[in-house]
């Protein structure tokens, strides 16, 4: 009985969230009532859903709820287990906080044209993600998946009067449909291997090697496209950049995780996966991580920079999953526990701090109406709360203590170092590359956020926009600081989430997980102690610094004034110049495009510099390939005669051929 309660509560929450934007559609274009109602329904629905998840964590294993229908497969199954609970929680949390944030960020009175559409699809997308995660079989999963993908398309194209938005929307839609196509393949193969659409464990003897490989490859393609794994990330940066910021927070924080969820769920069905799977996932994770952060460093659009960091974090999550897969193949329960716990915790952490960063970036955009970092500067004086929130998010995403990003990356480190002790073999080879890659990712992320925070919030204002920025209203700050609180709680008290993660591990690999206790594998208690000590030291240091500054009577001048007689904001480091060294190191893959004045005149004159890091995969591989395809298919134009008679004749020919074909 208890198990049914949790499923029903979550389902109710999904329904309420899904319908939250509906009443507002009937409201007036310029009235805030619809928006307040949608926000309230979203919060209520999320509370219901979270209550369901909480009930599950309190009472234990859930049994699926089955409803007879006329859909393929006959019954619709929804269920909550340790894995779904972990993935469904961020859906509700981020969706509710984003709804509140929208009250200030995307006010109906300021956006009468698209506000109602935005809220309708926002609720629908959140609900669809909930459905994807609690789906007990492939049919429900695909239904939820497709609703999610389409609702997200309408959210990305909220401001569809702009050319840039429409282009990004098309690329997203194409990528989403390729992903769905792969998933149809995955579920068809799973059905033929297991005989049902429900999630059933495939016995090692029950599925042939080529079949298993096909399932894994298609799943990696389909879910990898959605998650933004490196060569498949083409839709991600522009879609995240142009969507409204609370939508970007949802997309980056939660939608990408649906890809991860799918991969985790499908791999959970194989009790003895080949070692190669784990090595492949680990390698792809390392590539996504390093290249994601390398591309991020080259960006000068604040939200695009954050979008590339999503790719980096997906890479970190995949590294954890890869480690867990290797552990499962080799029967090492500790690797499974550490890798999967790191991956699952990083799913939470990333959805928290990336949502926080996108909301903070949205706050900046809301105040200054630009995403160009080189137009900003010195915002920490005019927007101190936003600056504090962004700084917290930045520390968390760089994996620095005492915040949550450190904990999950620490778990993956411990697991990777564990594999080193085994000597030779593919796992050793993988880990010996993976651990340094993870370290490289962390260092580059720190550099990148030093750039982002420094250029946007420190220094002096570069333009009038930045000078006149005002702090955002409380409706936007409260959700941001709720996320700051979540980051701090997980960072300072990681042992609180350990039981939840253990449930997730037990659901993924039931044959291994009965003996594993996370607290025994990793010093979670010590993380708390060290985090608190660090926090105390920081507090002391800042107090000491504050008293020192007060004592002194030093003259003040503009930041980066450098003692010049007439300093200007233009002598500061820009986003490009700060990153120039690192972009130069990664020149071989970033292929930066630079336009500069070639010869500087003898006497000071005008000079110009324009640097841009394009998306190599999209601009240099995918788009040329599509142009070639378009050229080839243009030959088929000869069949387009524009005469109905000819078209009917084509149909007739096809019919005759079908009749004659045996």
């Amino acid at each position, binding site marked *: 009985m208890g198990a049914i309660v949790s499923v029903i509560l979550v389902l109710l929450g999904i329904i309420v969230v899904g319908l939250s934007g509906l009443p507002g559609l009937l409201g007036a274009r310029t009235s805030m009532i619809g928006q307040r109602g949608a926000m309230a329904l979203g919060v209520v629905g999320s509370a219901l859903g979270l209550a369901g998840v909480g009930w599950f964590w309190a009472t234990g294993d859930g049994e699926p709820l089955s409803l007879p229908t006329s859909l393929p497969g006959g019954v619709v199954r929804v269920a909550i287990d340790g894995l779904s609970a972990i993935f469904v929680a961020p859906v509700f949390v981020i969706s509710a906080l984003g709804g509140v944030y929208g009250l200030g960020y995307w006010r109906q009175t300021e956006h009468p044209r698209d506000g109602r559409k935005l809220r309708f699809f926002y609720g629908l997308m959140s609900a669809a993600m909930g459905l994807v995660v609690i789906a007990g079989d492939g049919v429900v999963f695909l239904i939820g998946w497709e609703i999610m993908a389409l609702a997200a398309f309408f959210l990305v194209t909220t401001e569809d009067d702009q050319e840039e938005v429409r282009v990004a929307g098309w690329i997203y839609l194409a990528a989403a449909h390729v992903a769905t196509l792969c998933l149809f393949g995955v579920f068809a193969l799973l059905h033929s291997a297991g005989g049902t659409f429900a999630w059933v464990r495939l016995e090692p003897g029950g599925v042939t090697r080529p079949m298993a490989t096909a399932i894994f490859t298609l799943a990696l393609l389909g879910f990898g496209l959605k998650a933004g794994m490196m060569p498949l990330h083409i839709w991600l940066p522009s879609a995240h950049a142009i969507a409204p910021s609370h939508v970007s927070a949802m997309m980056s924080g939660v939608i990408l995780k649906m890809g991860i969820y799918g991969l985790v769920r499908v791999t959970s069905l194989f009790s003895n996966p080949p070692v190669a799977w784990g090595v492949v996932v680990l390698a792809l994770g390392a590539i996504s991580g390093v290249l994601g952060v390398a591309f991020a460093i080259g960006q000068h659009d604040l939200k695009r920079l954050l979008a590339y960091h999503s790719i980096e974090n997906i890479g970190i999550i995949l590294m954890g999953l890869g480690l867990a897969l290797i552990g499962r193949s080799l029967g090492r329960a500790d690797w499974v526990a550490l890798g999967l716990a790191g991956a699952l915790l990083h799913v939470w952490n990333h959805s928290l701090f990336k949502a926080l960063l996108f909301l903070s970036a949205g706050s900046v955009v809301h105040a200054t109406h630009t995403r160009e970092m080189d137009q900003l500067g010195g915002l920490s004086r005019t927007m101190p709360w936003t600056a504090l929130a962004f700084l917290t998010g930045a520390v968390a995403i760089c994996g620095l203590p005492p915040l949550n990003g450190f904990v999950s990356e620490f778990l993956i480190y411990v697991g990777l170092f564990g594999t080193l002790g085994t000597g030779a073999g593919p796992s050793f080879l993988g880990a010996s590359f993976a651990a340094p890659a993870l370290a490289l990712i962390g260092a580059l992320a720190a550099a990148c956020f030093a750039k982002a925070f420094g250029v946007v919030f420190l220094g002096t204002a570069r333009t009038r926009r930045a000078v006149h920025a005002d702090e955002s209203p409380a409706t936007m700050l409260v959700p941001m600081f709720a996320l700051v609180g979540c980051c701090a709680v997980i960072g300072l008290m990681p042992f609180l989430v350990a039981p939840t993660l253990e449930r997730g591990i037990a659901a993924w690999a039931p044959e291994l997980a009965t003996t594993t206790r996370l607290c025994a594998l990793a010093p979670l208690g010590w993380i708390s102690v060290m985090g608190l000590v660090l926090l105390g030291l920081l507090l002391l240091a800042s107090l000491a610094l504050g008293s020192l500054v007060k004592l002194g009577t030093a003259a003040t001048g503009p930041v980066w004034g450098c003692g010049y007689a007439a300093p200007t904001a233009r002598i500061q480091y820009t986003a490009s110049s700060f990153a120039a060294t690192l972009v130069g190191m990664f020149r071989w893959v970033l292929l930066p495009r630079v336009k500069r004045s070639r010869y500087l005149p003898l006497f000071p004159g005008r000079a110009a510099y324009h640097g841009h890091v394009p998306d190599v995969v999209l601009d240099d591989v995918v788009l040329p390939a599509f142009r070639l395809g378009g050229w080839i298919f243009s030959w088929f134009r000869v069949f387009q*005669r524009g005469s109905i008679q000819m078209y009917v004749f084509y149909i007739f020919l096809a019919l005759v051929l079908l009749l004659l074909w045996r």
Partner: protein
Amino acid sequence: MAQLLDPILIMALALNFVALGVSRIKGVVNAVALQGILLGFLPLLVHPEIHPRGILLVVVTIALKGYVIPWFLLHAMREANIQHEVNPVVGYMSSLFLGAVGTGLAIVYSSTLPLASEHAEMLFVPASLATVWTGFLMLTTRRKAIMQVLGYLILENGLFLFGVLLLEAMPFLVEAGVLLDLFTAVFVMGIIIHHISREFASISTEHLSELKE
């Protein structure tokens, strides 16, 4: 009753040739309407122990194909002020010849099909194939949009013939759905004809080729 079947089917085949060989649009409309009514009675003859829902279907089919759609087309004809198909892609004599060849091929081809024994001796399958062929012929060789609508109706009659064979196996819903499709299609085409004639002062579909991009 079954002895009436073959005469009805032969009449339907003959009406195909009327539709192919006549240039007055009114005559073609009448031929198609008559064909629709004749075929509408077929389910009663093939399955005498038909249930009430089937009778409803028969009544609706006859009403729609025999009266509503022809009335609608004649109305559209008056609106557009046309009487004749002036300049078909393939002439009337050639159309008749092609229709005859197609009917012959249909009879030959259907004898090679692995049909159920109770269907093999009847004219159903050849008549169905020949009618579909006639419909395609009308659709591809006539320029006036209204003639193409008529071709489409003949095509549908051919499919209906096939459907009669499967009446017991096919759910009521499918038949009703096909009927609804037919009605909607003719309705939409009627509106399009009206608009073409208003825009281009003629209902020849050739003018539409400029819209192909």
